[in-house]
Every structure is written in structure tokens, then in C-alpha cells.
């Protein structure tokens, strides 16, 4: 993209991000907040795709973030920012520890492994009623606030979520543009070569995997403190699949792809709601059509068509 095109894209992104403030409608804020939260989960999945491994456990990591943040704030009495940080640290640490073992598995096997892992995480929330509340989930999660500044009102929470998304994108871009990204690209191009060059490729992949879990945990923490209520099924593999579809719709080759996907897919059920009976069918057909006719996603359209 040229300089002008980049500027136009940035302006468009800013306009879309700020649009809810102009609309001012409570439900628009609600949908916008969900776009931000689910978009973050999609970004976290995007990171795992960048290391060439489709992780279906990202919903589980979002759950770990949500439950950790909720328990830290509600039962341990930590203020929201500390609970958020704590949740991110816990999820990233779990991912780093698991990554040492599971990242050795590649390809379809890795997708299946994380599918099992994601289901297992959710089943743990269901099975251990103390402290996770079982199928009931956790209620009465304190609303978000930054010191004296309450984020309970939707516009305030949306502003906060927007800032978080922006910071996460900056961090992810830094990660992908810096040394890790370089190593990862060389891994994707020729893994044996970079391995023979002495790169500890597993360590780099583990770093990115932990970062992806951290982003998922941020998403989970925002979700918990926004809704004030969490339950296990919100974090099952279905949630990950939704994030995956966002990546596909938005374009997997583009950092903005997952967010474009979230922007389209989160409000999509609202469009089809008029016909409840056909909602799921229309949704599925649109997805199939997208995958068959726009394999590079909508982001691919924007980035021009360089592929034959």
C-alpha cells in the first residue's frame, strides 16, 4: 500500500472506531464493546497462526483470563487494573509452561491437541464448583474502574476497550516487526535452515504462544468485568472457532484482518435476527461463500489482489 492509501486506511479505521461515540446509542456501544473483546480474541488466535500453528485453545485462555480476573477482583479484592494484570500474567505463564511441551507437536495434530486442551479447560471450570462456580459461573464481578474513574457506563468502558485494543495492536506489531517476527518469518520460510543456524526456534514460538495467551486473557478480563457475569460455555471451542472465522473473513495475512472480521461477524447475527429460524443457516452460508469465493478474506480485497 502506498503512503496515501495507508493514510486513508488509518482515517477509516479511526472513523469506525469513533463512530459509536457519535451514534451514542446504548446498544451500539454494547455491540462495539463486544467487537473489541472478540476482536482481541481473534488477534490472539492470529498470533498463533503466525507461528504456523492453529491453536483451538485460545477460548480456553480467554476463560483463564476471565476467571482469574474475576476471582482476583471479587474474592481477593484487588482493584480492576491489578486483576487484569494478574490475569494476563497467569494465562501467559500457563501458556509458556504448556508451550514447552505442546509446541513440539505440529500441523493437524497441534490443532487437535489444542482442541482437546480447550475443551479440558472448560470442563475444569464446570467440574470444580469451588472456586469456579460450575455451570453457574461467577456472578457479581465488580465493574471495571481505573482508580477513582468508574468504567461502568458503556461509553467509558468502550473508550477503555478501544485504548486496550490500540495498545495490544502496537505491541503485537512490535513483536512481529522485531527480532521474534524476523525469526518467525525465517521459520515459516525454511525451518530446518534457521534451526541449523542455531536459532532456538522453540523458545521463540513459546514466546509468541505466551503472548497470544496474554492477549486472550485481556479479552477475557474485559469480558468478565463488562458483563459482570461469566460461565464456562462462553469460552469453549465454539468461541475459538468464532475467532478463527473472524480471521478467515478478515484475512489471515493481515494484522488488521482479525479486527475487520470481528467488525463484520459480531454484528452479523443482529442482521439476521429478524428471521430467527433461518439465522444460523444464513450465517453458515455467508461463511461458506466467503471461504469459497474470497479465500484471502475481506482484508485481502482491501490489500489489493496480487495473487493470480
Amino acid at each position, binding site marked *: 500500500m502506498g503512503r496515501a492509501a495507508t493514510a486513508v486506511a488509518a482515517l477509516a479505521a479511526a472513523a469506525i472506531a469513533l463512530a459509536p461515540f457519535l451514534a451514542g446509542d446504548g446498544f451500539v456501544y*454494547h455491540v462495539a464493546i463486544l467487537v473489541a473483546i472478540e476482536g482481541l480474541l481473534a488477534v490472539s488466535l492470529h498470533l498463533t497462526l503466525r507461528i504456523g500453528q492453529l491453536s483451538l485453545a485460545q477460548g480456553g485462555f480467554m476463560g483463564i483470563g476471565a476467571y482469574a480476573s474475576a476471582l482476583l477482583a471479587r474474592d481477593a479484592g484487588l482493584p480492576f487494573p491489578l486483576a487484569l494484570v494478574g490475569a494476563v500474567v497467569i494465562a501467559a505463564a500457563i501458556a509458556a509452561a504448556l508451550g514447552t511441551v505442546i509446541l513440539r507437536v505440529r500441523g493437524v495434530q497441534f490443532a487437535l491437541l489444542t482442541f482437546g486442551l480447550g475443551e479440558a479447560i472448560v470442563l475444569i471450570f464446570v467440574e470444580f464448583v469451588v472456586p469456579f462456580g460450575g455451570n453457574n459461573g461467577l456472578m457479581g464481578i465488580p465493574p471495571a474502574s481505573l482508580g477513582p474513574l468508574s468504567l461502568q457506563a458503556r461509553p467509558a468502558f468502550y473508550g477503555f476497550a478501544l485504548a486496550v485494543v490500540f495498545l495490544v495492536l502496537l505491541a503485537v506489531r512490535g513483536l512481529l516487526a522485531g527480532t521474534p517476527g524476523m525469526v518467525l518469518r525465517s521459520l515459516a520460510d525454511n525451518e530446518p535452515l534457521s534451526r541449523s543456524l542455531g536459532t532456538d526456534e522453540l523458545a521463540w514460538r513459546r514466546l509468541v504462544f505466551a503472548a497470544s495467551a496474554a492477549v486472550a486473557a485481556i479479552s477475557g478480563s474485559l469480558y468478565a468485568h463488562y458483563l459482570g457475569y461469566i460461565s464456562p460455555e462462553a469460552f469453549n471451542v465454539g468461541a475459538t472457532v468464532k475467532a478463527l472465522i473472524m480471521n478467515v473473513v478478515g484475512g489471515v495475512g493481515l494484522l488488521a484482518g482479525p479486527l475487520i472480521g470481528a467488525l463484520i461477524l459480531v454484528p452479523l447475527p443482529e442482521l439476521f435476527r429478524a428471521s*430467527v429460524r433461518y439465522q444460523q443457516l444464513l450465517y453458515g452460508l455467508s461463511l461458506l461463500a466467503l471461504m469459497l469465493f474470497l479465500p484471502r478474506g475481506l482484508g485481502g480485497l482491501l490489500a489489493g489482489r496480487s495473487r493470480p
Partner: protein
Amino acid sequence: MLRLIRHAALAATILSAIAGAAGARAQAQETLKIGVLGTLTGPGATWGLAIDGGARIAADEVNAKGGLKVGDKAYKVEIVAYDDQYKAASAVTALNRLAGPDGVRFVLGPIGSASLLAIKPITERDKIVLFTASWSAAVLKDSNYIFRVGPTTQEFAPATIAWLKRTHPAVKRIATVSANDETGWNSQRIQKEAYGKAGLEVVAAEHFERQQTDFRALLTKLLAAKPDSIELDTTPPPTAGLIIRQAREQGYKGLFTKFGGFDVAEIVRTAGADYAEGVVGISQGDPASPEWARLREAYAKHHKNEMGDFVFLFYDAARLLFAGIERAGTATDVDKVVKAIEQSAPFPGTVGPLTWGGKEAYGVDHQIYTPLYLVAIQEGAGRVIGKVDLQ
């Protein structure tokens, strides 16, 4: 060229969907939207569809009489229904829609306790009135805007168990089965307590997952405790039917009671008439009564499934709400409407007077008492065999 056509077709699909949604929002004016929030799909759907059916029957009646008279205006009542899929998170999103773009202040539902407890902080804060059949004890505590439309395990368990002791003196050992969530935990706890108080031994208490259909392992464990009667509690009726059938197939000869949401048609459908024979439950209405026939006919205009007894609860609740709004003279001042409803007891219900109480148990008199029948399944149909005395 082909690619261009494909893109154009895709764009057209998306645009038409957007246009459709926008069109749906364009109407309104002089209509009062009443929300329905219930499980419209899956195993709990009989109850959710009962909310929707009851609300629509009541709305049809009001609209046929020229609408709701509020002050000098007449509102046409419109029902807006959302499915919570028995999931709390879906309930929160649905409520956000009802309260946001739909501008709804009065909601019938939900049934799931988790759904209700998840939305309660929002509805209490934003002053949205709920008429729920959710049975958790925590529903009415610290709430000002929630009414519970019918008696719960808490209210009827002593009476139903007394009936069991009187009519089945040989029954000594009880097993209970309930769903593994707030609804099941709460009702099972109350049942166990009440059975214990009545001097019956609870020999097994099991929980299942809502999407479960295979109960062979659970029943193996349960039947090993040799119960005389199995209490199916708040288990959704289609699931209850499967449990009954699989228990009978494993050789269980004892009694089944389902004191907590009963649906003869659903239980007979999934258990089979032979296996369902003799199952005893409670019902809001008498299936042989003319009222039942009238509502059943009206219900058939909205939903294809066989009407369940919860239609009585929500039909009456909707009528109670409409009367409250007319009496308060406002459809916007929620506090006034709540006050008006509180003051309208006893209200003429479909099968008898509705009264309310609950102050000592829940701290607020928002527990509505309705007449309750004991029903046994005989040859695939429900027969009233007694009435439950709630006081």
C-alpha cells in the same frame, strides 16, 4: 468476470441483510413492546415457548379490544422475543437488545436461574421489570423489579411430599435427579431438605449435564441405592422422559415423581406411553378443563408444539402486567407500574385467584401464588388426581 459477479453477489447479500434489519427497525409508534426472554430452543424450549405463547395470547386479546388504555392513549401491544438458549451469556446479550434498541421496560422470563441471576444486576439498575419462573431462592432477594409468576419448590415441596406420604405409605427411599446448574442445585437442595423433614430417606442425589441424553451410567449408580421413588425435580420434561425410559429399561419398578415443571406431552413423547404410565407431577392447570382447551386453541396459532402448563403462568402474568399498566396510567414510569401490580392482589387468574407473598422468605412480596394441581399420566394423558394446598 466470474469473480466480479461473485463479489457483486456477495455484496448484494450483505447489503440486503443490512437493509432488512434497518427496515425492521423503522416501524414503532403507539405500540408498547413487551419483551420475552426464554429458552426457545433445546431441551428447555417447552418452557420458553410457554412464556412466548402465554404472552402472545394475552397480547392478542388486548389488541383485539383496541389495545392497552393508558391515560388517553391506546397502545398496541407487540411481543419481542429472544432466545437465551438456557445460557446466561446469551441472556445478557438479549437483555441488552431488549433494553437498548427495543426500548423494552417489561420482560416476561427468563426461566433459567443462571440467566436470571446474570441479568439481575442490569435489570435492577436500569429499572426493568421481570416476570420470571426462575426458581432459585436468590431470585427475589434484594430485588425491587422482579416478580415470580408461580410457586416454586420452596412453596410446594412440603405439600407435594405430604401427599406422597399419604398416598404411598410404602415409599421410604428417595432418589433425586436434577440438572447440574443453579436451577438444579437449588431445587434439589430444597427437595432433599423437605424429604428429610418428612422422614423419608434420600438415598441418592445425582446431577446431569443439560445436553446429556445417555443416562445409563448415572442410573446404574442411582438404582444401586435401591430407591422406592425417583424425584425428577426440575429436570426439563424431554430429558425427564429419557431418564424414565432408561430407568425402566434397567429394571426400575418404583414410582416417578416430577414435582417441578411437568409436561405430559413431552414426557410421553420421549419416554413412550408405556414407560410414562403412572408418573406423577404438578400442573398449573387441569388438562381436562375448558380453560385448558381455550388456551390450547389460542396457543396453536403461535406455536406448533403441544401446549405446556406454564402457558397458564405467563398468560396470567401478562394480563396482570397489562392490568397494572392500565391501573398505573403509565407505560413508562416503571415504579408506578410495580406499585400498581403490588396493590392488585387478589388478581383473577385463569383457574383461580392469584395472591402474593414471600416477604418472610425473600424480603419482598413478589412471589405470586397460583393454584396447583397434582397430575398423573394415565394412558398417555394427564389426569388431575388432587390439588396442592400451598398455605
